[in-house]
């Protein structure tokens, strides 16, 4: 069965979605990512959707679910590269992607992940 590749870069996982996903493929990505966060001890997940021409409620919900699951597994998720037409359509559809962090491109997404993980590390050690 076809799969969306997940690349490991240090303590991050990078996913670039380059195909028009059918629902089962989206579900398998969610499952694969969750397993990989654990097996790779990942602290952050970057999902690049700059090639996606459409995000509907199913795919939008998948991003929300991935963000929630990664948070429970002690990792942060950032979705990057959403096309303007996709963003306009998502909002009109009624989906605000609440709980999903986004950034304009991979570079800014990486910066955001670094910042999130660093600030979390500080908080953990000073619980007095």
């Amino acid at each position, binding site marked *: 069965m076809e799969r969306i590749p997940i690349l490991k870069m240090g303590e991050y996982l990078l996913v670039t979605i380059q195909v*028009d*996903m*059918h*629902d*089962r493929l989206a579900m398998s990505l969610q499952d694969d990512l969750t397993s990989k966060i654990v097996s790779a001890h990942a602290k952050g997940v970057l999902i690049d959707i700059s090639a996606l*021409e*459409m*995000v*509907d*409620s*199913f795919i*939008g*919900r998948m991003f929300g679910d991935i963000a929630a699951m990664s948070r429970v597994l002690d990792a942060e998720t950032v979705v990057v590269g959403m096309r*303007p*037409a*996709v963003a*306009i*359509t998502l909002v*009109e*559809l*009624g*989906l605000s992607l609440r709980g999903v962090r986004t950034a304009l491109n991979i570079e800014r997404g990486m910066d955001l992940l670094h910042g999130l993980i660093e600030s979390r590390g500080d908080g953990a050690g000073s619980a007095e």
Partner: protein
Amino acid sequence: MLVPLSENRSISTSEDVVAVRQAVRQRAVDLGFNLVDQTKIVTAASELARNTLHYGGGGTLRIEEVLQGSRRGIRLVFEDNGPGIPNIELAMKDGYTTGNGLGLGLSGAKRLSSEFFIDSSPGEGTRVTIVRWR
């Protein structure tokens, strides 16, 4: 130039939903829709095709070009012979779902369309028709 004004597609797998998106995109491009309007009609089609698959148990889509005066547009007719929708008003509400989705399929598709019609009889099936003008 002769282009087919109407085409029919079957919706019985989640791959068919992807094929529907691609066919609607192609038709919107052919008709000169701008990128935002293409994205809106494709997204609406994806929501409705998924509904046809999951709630209607599969069905068909007819893609038609429509002309009104000098206006051109796309009409999409989704039909299934599933259980039908007992309460359309409730089904049209944001966030209402009988499945495990977000409940944005029908209401969202309506917001993304210029015109929206729904016709459903319990036990007989559902027909959803949308039009998006260029």
